[in-house]
C-alpha cells in the first residue's frame, strides 16, 4: 500500500484559483426538481463568521441519481444537473442555487454531502445536510447519531418571496459544533 499524501490548508488566498463565477449555481431552467437556495455561515469557536472558507457540496439529482458511472442509474440521471457546487464564504456566508435531491436508496430521506476548507484547517471537514421537512430518523446514519448533536445537520426550510430557502450554519467548534465525519 502507498501512504497517502497529507492534506494542507487552502490558506486565505485560494479564491482566484478555486472559486469561479457560477460555481455555486448547480441548476439551469431545465433542471428537474424543486429549486432551492441553500445558504448559511461558517462559524468559528467564538461564533464569528469565517469569511475565508470554501464549501463544496455533492448531491443526487431530483430522482436520487448521480451523473457518475458508479450509479447503476447513471444513464437516467438528469443531464442538466452535475451535482457539484463550490462556494467561497464572505461576510454573508456561502450559498448554493440547487435542487432538493431525491433520496438515494437505501435511505428514504435526502441529504447533501459537504466539505469545508479554510485557512486554519490543515485538513478539510466532511459533513452532511439533511432537510427539516423530512423525518430524518428514517435515515440509518442520521438515526445512529447522538440525538443531542444530530440537529446540527438539519437545514431549516423557509418560504420566501424569492423561493424556498434552506438555512444551514456550519459551526467548526463550540457548543453547537457541527457533526463531522471521518472520510
Amino acid at each position, binding site marked *: 500500500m502507498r501512504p497517502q499524501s497529507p492534506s*494542507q490548508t487552502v490558506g486565505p488566498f485560494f479564491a482566484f484559483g478555486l472559486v469561479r463565477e457560477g460555481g455555486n449555481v448547480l441548476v439551469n431552467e431545465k433542471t428537474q426538481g424543486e429549486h432551492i437556495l441553500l445558504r448559511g455561515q461558517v462559524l468559528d469557536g467564538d461564533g464569528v463568521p469565517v469569511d475565508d472558507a470554501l464549501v*463544496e457540496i455533492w448531491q443526487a439529482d431530483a430522482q436520487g441519481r448521480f451523473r457518475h458511472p458508479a450509479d447503476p442509474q447513471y444513464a437516467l440521471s438528469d443531464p442538466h444537473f452535475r451535482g457539484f457546487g463550490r462556494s467561497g464564504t464572505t461576510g454573508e456566508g456561502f450559498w448554493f442555487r440547487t435542487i432538493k435531491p431525491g433520496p438515494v436508496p437505501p435511505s428514504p430521506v435526502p441529504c447533501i454531502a459537504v466539505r469545508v476548507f479554510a485557512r486554519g484547517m490543515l485538513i478539510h471537514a466532511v459533513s452532511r445536510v439533511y432537510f427539516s421537512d423530512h423525518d430524518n430518523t428514517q435515515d440509518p446514519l442520521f438515526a445512529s447519531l447522538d440525538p443531542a448533536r444530530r440537529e446540527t445537520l438539519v437545514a431549516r426550510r423557509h418560504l420566501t418571496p424569492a423561493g424556498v430557502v434552506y438555512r444551514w450554519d456550519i459551526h467548526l467548534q463550540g457548543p453547537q459544533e457541527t457533526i463531522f465525519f471521518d472520510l
Partner: protein
Amino acid sequence: MSHSESPHRVLDWSVQPPYLYSPYVATVRRAPHHPLVPLPASLLERTGPVYGEGDIGPLDHDLTRNAAKNGEPLGERIIVTGRVLDESGRGVPGVLIEIWQANAAGRYIHKNDQHDAPLDPNFVGAGRTLTDDQGYYRFITIKPGAYPWRNHHNAWRPAHIHFSLIGRNFSERLVTQMYFPGDPLLKYDPIYQGIPNIKARERLIASFDLETTRPEWALGYRFDIVLAGYDRTYFEEEP
C-alpha cells in the same frame, strides 16, 4: 486503528495533520473538538463530479501563458509533473488538478495580500489540468517566492504551490501544498510542521528531476500524489 479494523475509514490519521495544531494559530478557533463520526460508504461517497477534456482550456496548464498580457511573467520558469496514484499504486485517470500560487516575488492576487512585493501583470498564478489515462499531469509555471505572514514573529511561508485534486468520487478529494527541496524555511513553518509524521510531510517536497528539466529553458520538478479513497482494496495490508 489499522485499515482492517475499520473498513470504512478513508483518511489515514497516522499521516494526516490534526485539526488542532496550536503553533499554527488559526487552528485554535477553527478546529473541531468532537471526534469524527465514522461514515459508512454509500453511493453519495462512491460518486463525485466527473471532469473531461471539455472542462479544460488549452492553456489552462501553462501559468506562464494563461494570463500573459504583454509579455512573459517574471521569475524562474519551472515544469512541475508527476503522477496521481491510489493507495494500491495505480495511476488515477481523470483527476481534476487545480493549482494556485504566489508570483516570483511572493505576492498573491488577492485584496487581503498586503505583502510589499510587486504584482506581475503577466501572471495570475492559477491553473488546472486533468490527469491522463495513467494518472500523469504536467504544469508549466514560475517558481513562487516566499512571503511573510503574521502567525508568529518573523514568520515566512516556504515557497509552495497549492494543489486541489478531485478524483473519481467524493472520497478522493485532497487539498495540499507542494514544497521545494532544500528550502530552509520548512523547519520553521507550522503549516508544514503540522503534519506529525516526518516521512509523510517529506512527501510534500517535490524532487528535482533532470528528466523533466528542459535544456536552456526550465528546471523540472517531480511531485507524485497519493489519494485516499473507497476504491482501495481493504484486505491488502501494508507490505
